[in-house]
């Protein structure tokens, strides 16, 4: 029998993979994709508890998360285009104007 714990465990694994991806990758595009993985982990969590508790609020929240993810993708990819225009690269360590 598959219960909420299985879904939460899967969500945890996805979140950690996404987190590691955000921290270690050099390519800005892949970092944004890892971020999408973390969004998906959150959505799995919300849907699992929506099912477990018999409450649709989790699904509505997941819709909001997807909307914010779409906004994040638009902004992030705009940033990539601006970075490529400025530096001619998508490598994150090249973007060090602010001393990072």
């Amino acid at each position, binding site marked *: 029998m*598959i*219960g909420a*714990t299985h*879904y*939460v*465990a*899967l969500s*945890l*694994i996805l979140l*950690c*993979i*996404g*987190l*590691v*991806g955000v*921290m*270690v*990758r*050099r390519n800005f*595009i*892949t970092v944004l994709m*890892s971020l*999408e*993985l973390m969004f998906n982990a959150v959505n*799995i969590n919300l*849907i*699992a508890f*929506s*099912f*477990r*508790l*018999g409450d*649709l*609020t989790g*699904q*509505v929240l*997941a*819709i*909001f998360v*997807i*909307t*914010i993810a*779409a*906004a994040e*993708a*638009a*902004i992030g*990819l*705009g940033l*990539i*285009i*601006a970075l490529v*225009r*400025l530096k001619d*690269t*998508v*490598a*994150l*360590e090249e973007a060090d*104007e602010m001393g990072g």
Partner: protein
Amino acid sequence: MDFLVDNFGSILFYVVAGITVATAIGVVAFRNPVHAAISLLVTFLMVAVLFIMSHAEFLAAVQVLVYAGGIMVLYLFVIMLVRIADIGPGKVFLSGLAPLAVLGGVVLGCLIAIGILLGSMAAGDGGAAAMTAINGEAIGNTEAVGWLLYMKYLVPFEIVSVVLLVAMIGAIVFGRRDAGLAGAVEEVEP
């Protein structure tokens, strides 16, 4: 054969979860961003299957339409637009901190896993109640979610639409050719 039939739900979950985790690792590990994007696409589709298994059919459709359809096309578009050769060979990960970051991710995962285990021991792990009825009337998942979204959560819905508008304007500003970014950096670096 009986085993397969009796445990179909569990087997399906483990297969789908396995593919999800494998493709998610692929997103992080693939050298070529196009391969990572295709891997991410499979992850999105598998997550949609998980949504269907949790009786969130509308969310599954939204997942396929918005993520697999919209966001993935946007990513592939940008990957094609940017020259991959600029990333340089041999350097996929940021130097130095990568093992530390992986260690940090694993430690965080272990901590949350302990929390999940304790929580599931405390709360049990039962099945779900039916949730496709509002005001005692049996309706489909899409109608139920829509009812909740436009009746109870109308104000958050409007706020999120404003966030989307801001994101759209921001993307247009970043995308303009004379965005002023190049000039600003030249001023900073004399």
